[in-house]
């Protein structure tokens, strides 16, 4: 039973992780990352490290989430489709 809970928690974490780096909407990405942080603290508790859990909740999810939200506020809210590979060639010329 406990093992099942652990497997579910880890699976959830993996799923949220994938989601947070592949969302086209940046805001959603950030929200998912914050959620990831919160579930991670749960995992720390399960692993018997309550102090790490506290730090994760406060810093990992809290501070980082706030920083990310602030940055998103400065940028376009959606990931735009990328231009043609021509720019990649110019990049090589630049390097």
């Amino acid at each position, binding site marked *: 039973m406990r093992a099942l809970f652990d497997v579910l928690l880890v699976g959830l974490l993996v799923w949220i992780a994938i989601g947070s*780096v592949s969302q086209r909407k940046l805001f959603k990405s950030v929200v998912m990352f914050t959620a990831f942080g919160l579930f991670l603290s749960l995992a720390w508790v399960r692993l*018997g490290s309550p102090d*790490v859990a506290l730090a994760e909740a406060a810093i*990992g999810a809290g501070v980082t989430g706030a920083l990310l939200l602030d940055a998103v506020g400065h940028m376009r809210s959606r990931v735009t489709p*990328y231009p043609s590979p021509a720019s990649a060639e110019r*990049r090589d010329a630049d390097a």
Partner: protein
Amino acid sequence: MSTYLIYAVGGALIFSIGTYALLAQRHIMHKVIGANIMGSGIFMVLIALGKRTPDGVTDPVPQAMVLTGIVVTVALTALGLSIAKRYYTLTGLDDLDQDPPACDGR
């Protein structure tokens, strides 16, 4: 299946997801989040392996390492985001692979 092994394997998976995002995603925010996820994966591996002591007592050293790691990662994230914001303001770009309009510089 013991607890630590579940988390260790999960940590390794999460690490790979983060690595993939850092290397393959082009949006700067996705890269930053990817790096953070990478870190979390490693922390999970660390803590999980720290649990694997013969007498079942939690080893404090990995916890200290993780706490340090969290703080350092936040610092890196803050720096990365401030660079990203500035870059976006200057060029309107959120992708490092695209050339900025003009490269000036002394």
